[in-house]
């Protein structure tokens, strides 16, 4: 149900409201104390209620309207496939003071990167202006930003896992870094194809981006390291789990690692370090954070191979996209950073 708010200060629109991340944005904004959702767009479900597509939002009193008729709002969130936002950025900026884009369209710094990793860019002049949404690495530039690029889900998991090792000079960027990622089916968006039907997609461990995943570009941009990246689809709906295998040049102890992780994340409201211990849950796991904006990071030492294994886990729909976007908007607008993102997740929980 809609949380009562006397204090809604900002109006918001979601472009791509029928999609998976669009649905999450609607859910978060609907319950956010500082936002009022005034528009959700769809081309395919125009005039249908939001609840028609997102059964958890049946109480929300809103119908999809065309993306051609944008309302004037404080913040516009775009949750459209790659390429759409760069085509419509002018319309988006006309309609809203702040634009938060969930696609890859404004994540990279230079046109050259888009030429290398994507199919170029139609408005590279905006790239400099855009701020990467992940507050853990870019908080200081988000305040007042008016074009925000929400990070890639797999990139977010990887960056959060490895960052402390760079901060603490355990890694310099010259090392071999293997990133082996496991993701859920919501990462593919609502579209899907043959491979994402339930009979074909259930119970799998499927190499779906064996090499050359575009998120390598973001990771390199922020960590300064080129990673060997492989993504597997596994049987869950939400969740991205990255296992980074790294080989520091100098020996490192568990104490060093703890110091590094606490150094980077002690004050972060949405990052939790989990590394060992007892019980069932000893390392980061996507289902521990499903539905939440938390990232779990952790590590284990493999002295015989001079290896550090770094684990990180997020909900791709939250910390990996919609949650990160709202978090960044909170920072940009100067409202309480954790507003609307307090859900702790569930236990037990199956394969959310």
């Amino acid at each position: 149900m809609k949380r009562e708010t006397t204090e809604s200060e900002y109006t918001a629109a979601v472009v791509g409201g029928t999609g998976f991340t669009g649905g999450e944005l609607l859910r978060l904004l609907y319950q956010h104390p500082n936002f009022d959702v005034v528009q959700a767009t769809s081309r395919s479900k125009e005039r249908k209620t939001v609840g028609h597509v997102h059964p958890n939002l049946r109480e929300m009193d809103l119908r999809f309207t065309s993306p051609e008729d944008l309302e004037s709002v404080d913040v516009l969130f775009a949750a459209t496939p790659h390429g759409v936002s760069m085509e419509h950025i002018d319309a988006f900026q006309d309609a809203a003071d702040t634009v938060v884009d969930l696609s890859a369209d404004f994540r990279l710094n230079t046109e050259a990167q888009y030429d290398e990793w994507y199919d170029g860019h139609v408005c590279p002049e905006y790239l400099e202006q855009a701020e990467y949404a992940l507050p853990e690495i870019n908080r200081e530039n988000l305040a007042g930003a008016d074009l925000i690029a929400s990070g890639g889900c797999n990139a977010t998991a990887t960056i959060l896992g490895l960052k402390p090792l760079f901060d603490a000079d355990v890694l310099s960027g010259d090392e071999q870094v293997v990133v082996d990622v496991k993701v859920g089916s919501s990462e593919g968006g609502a579209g899907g194809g043959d491979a994402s039907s339930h009979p074909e997609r259930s119970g799998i461990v499927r190499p779906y981006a064996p090499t050359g995943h575009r998120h390598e570009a973001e990771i390199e941009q922020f960590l300064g390291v080129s990673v060997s990246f492989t993504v597997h689809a596994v049987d869950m709906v939400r969740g991205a789990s990255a296992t980074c295998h790294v080989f520091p040049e100098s020996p490192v102890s568990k104490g060093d690692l703890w110091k590094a992780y606490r150094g980077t994340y002690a004050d972060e409201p949405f990052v939790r370090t989990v590394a060992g211990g007892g019980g069932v849950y000893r390392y980061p796991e996507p289902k521990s954070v499903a539905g939440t904006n938390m990232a779990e990071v952790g590590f284990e030492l493999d002295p015989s191979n001079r290896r550090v294994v770094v684990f990180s886990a997020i909900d791709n729909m939250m910390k990996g996209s919609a949650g990160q976007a709202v978090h960044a908007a909170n920072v940009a607008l100067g409202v309480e950073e954790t507003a609307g993102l307090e859900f702790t997740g569930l236990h037990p929980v199956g394969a959310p």
Partner: protein
Amino acid sequence: MADTITAEDPLTGEEIELPGDVEVGEIVDSPATGAELEVVSVDPVTLEEAPELEEDWGE
């Protein structure tokens, strides 16, 4: 509520709260990290990382 005392988490350097009557050899977990710590002395309480658990679980 039961008396509590604080001790430094040897892994993270942070203060953690423990039951007032912990004993030497007791294994406690760190709230922030979940890690298991062993009480190696009391008065004041000092903690060390608990000895390795079995290599894996559920196998």
